[in-house]
């Protein structure tokens, strides 16, 4: 459009048209209306720019209807009302103390979905539901007696446990369990799970270590639920070479269903 109006012909005809206009309505204060138009256009354009170009990427921007955007109900990660709640224990009494930790002794809902109660191996093993061994040396030593409640993994379960291992463990222990994960060198002292000491380690001890952490390894109880932890233990067994001596026990552990009762 701009190019059209700049071309000679159009330009000329427009000017002629202008002249006719001026002759017809000379007395009207033409200049002022023109100026007003220009002014309003400029103001309009500036306002538009101001509305849009001021967006700061550090701020989320504005919204149409806040009532529809923000939930009135309690949402995850929503700010708590600081008049009612406190995470400072010294303010306990006047306000509700809540620091996001589950109340001691709480059992996660859906636990029996992870481990169906008709799985007798699981149901009979009281040491697992809930896991009662404590995070100390006596608990660690006792964990030898805890048996893996899972029977042999199905193909789908094996695939899932491989996925879980690769997400949560392989960062340090390596996808083959050989301590060659991408951050192993930065942490240092990462256990090579294919070594004899870990081949001989009982399932229970491994589960205990994953649940509570060991040395510089943190607890994975918040990332993997009990069933997933047992699955990962099963998967680690498939990465390990067959143990040199007294192998029969560990081997049967992988292949056949183990009894739950200690």
């Amino acid at each position, binding site marked *: 459009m701009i190019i059209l109006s700049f071309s000679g012909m159009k330009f000329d005809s427009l000017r002629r048209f202008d002249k006719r206009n001026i002759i017809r309505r000379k007395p009207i204060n033409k200049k002022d209306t*023109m100026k007003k138009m220009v002014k309003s*256009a400029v103001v*309009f354009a500036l306002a538009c720019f101001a509305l849009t170009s001021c967006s700061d990427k*550090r701020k989320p*921007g504005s919204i149409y209807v806040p009532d529809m*955007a923000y939930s009135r109900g309690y949402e995850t990660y929503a700010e708590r009302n600081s008049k009612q709640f406190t995470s400072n224990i010294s303010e306990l009494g006047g306000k509700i103390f809540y620091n996001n930790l589950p109340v001691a002794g709480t059992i996660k809902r859906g636990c029996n979905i992870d481990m169906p109660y008709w799985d007798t191996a699981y149901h009979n093993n009281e040491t697992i539901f809930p896991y009662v061994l404590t995070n100390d040396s006596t608990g660690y030593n006792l964990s030898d007696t805890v048996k893996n409640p899972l029977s042999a993994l199905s193909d789908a379960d094996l695939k899932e446990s491989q996925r879980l291992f690769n*997400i949560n463990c392989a960062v340090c222990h390596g996808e083959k369990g050989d301590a060659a994960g991408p951050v192993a060198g930065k*942490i*240092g002292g990462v256990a090579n799970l294919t070594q004899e000491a870990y081949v001989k380690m009982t399932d229970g001890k491994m589960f205990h270590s994953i649940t509570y952490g060991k040395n510089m390894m943190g607890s994975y109880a918040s990332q993997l639920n009990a069933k997933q932890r047992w699955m990962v233990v099963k998967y680690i067994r498939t990465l390990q070479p067959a143990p040199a001596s007294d192998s029969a026990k560990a081997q049967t552990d992988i292949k056949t269903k183990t009894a739950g009762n200690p």
Partner: protein
Amino acid sequence: MSCYKKIINRNFFFLIISLSLFLVNNNLFAQDGEALFKANCANCHKPDEDYTGPALKGWSARVPDKEWIYKWVANPAQVIASDAYAKSLFDKWKPTVMTAFPNLKKEEIDAIMKYVDNYKPAEKKDAAAGAAKDDSADNSLLYGILFLILAVVAFILLQVNSNLRKLTDDKEGVYRGEPVPFYRNKTYLMTGILILFALGGYYTINGAINLGRSRGYQPEQPIYYSHKVHAGTNQISCLYCHGGAQDSKHANIPSVNVCMNCHMSIKEYKGDPIVREDGKQVNGTEEIQKLYKYAGWNPETRQYNPDNNKDGIPDGASPIEWVKIHNLPDHVYFNHSQHVKVGKVQCQTCHGNIQEMPEVYQFSDLSMGWCINCHRESKVDFFNTSTGEGNKFYSIYEKFHKDLKDKKMDSVTVEKIGGTECQKCHY
């Protein structure tokens, strides 16, 4: 004459081949050294700086003789027992003792040492990348200036044109009236107003559409946490920290204990320099110290602070108040597990190349049109009755199975199974 040429040509050909072979061979050795270094040593050593073990560059000036290196690599513990220099090394780096590599041959150790001595840190690449970046920035400015110059030239030419026309008209005796100055020329004014109007309209409408969407939103976080370092360089899976994405509606913000899984050991940042958006360099080690404060962890004693006030968390610990970036309005339902676990959508599809973002910003506009487009295009993992592959849930869609069999359709999209129904997300 031609005979000579042939001979020269042949000789030349041989020369080139032998030369190139020589060069390639040389290169092969160097690469060998690099590969061997990376496979065996890089976990604890760096060529040019101290790491878990000492920097290896300049080894020849430090060790007693070359044989010493072979002995040391084969069995460090034995050398420590018998050699004074080895003892001093052990005292400096204890309690860590180097792992023995009895399988490394002498030639291989030579190759490693050669690689270490010739090692140069890769900085040139960055400089080149920076230059390329500058070039692209320059270009857009150049185009802008060119456009302005051309516009001014066009404007001047138009003025000249009208003046000339006036002159010729005067000569021919045609009356045309006084020429109007350009700021009162209605054609110019009209065009100007129209341009302003078009621009204004464009920006207003775009601004209005983008109200409530915050694409590009990149808030400052309480800790300068670089996804590029964690998910990119260190290849930590997204689901390691955001495991909630596969189990629940929210891709949870990891609790501090998840950070501490690695940062109990990693106290310092030693990677490539991180540069903030405003050009300032970030001190990674200081950021890790911030994490220790939030976690109530004492890096000196390597223990959490005791919980004396019995509130269940270490004294002095407090939650990190991360700023949520991706916000959907309350009237939309979105579930992560549905997309990540069932739909097997990659995180990057919606969140962009997170592993390359030092600071995360909102990559997609998260608008309804954007959702619907994806639902129209994405195929579901439809159950294949003949092979038994795919999600078994979809075995109930009998009509689609029939249509697939009759070749009336080749795949099932999310839209076909109701992915664009209003109630699917708004209820």
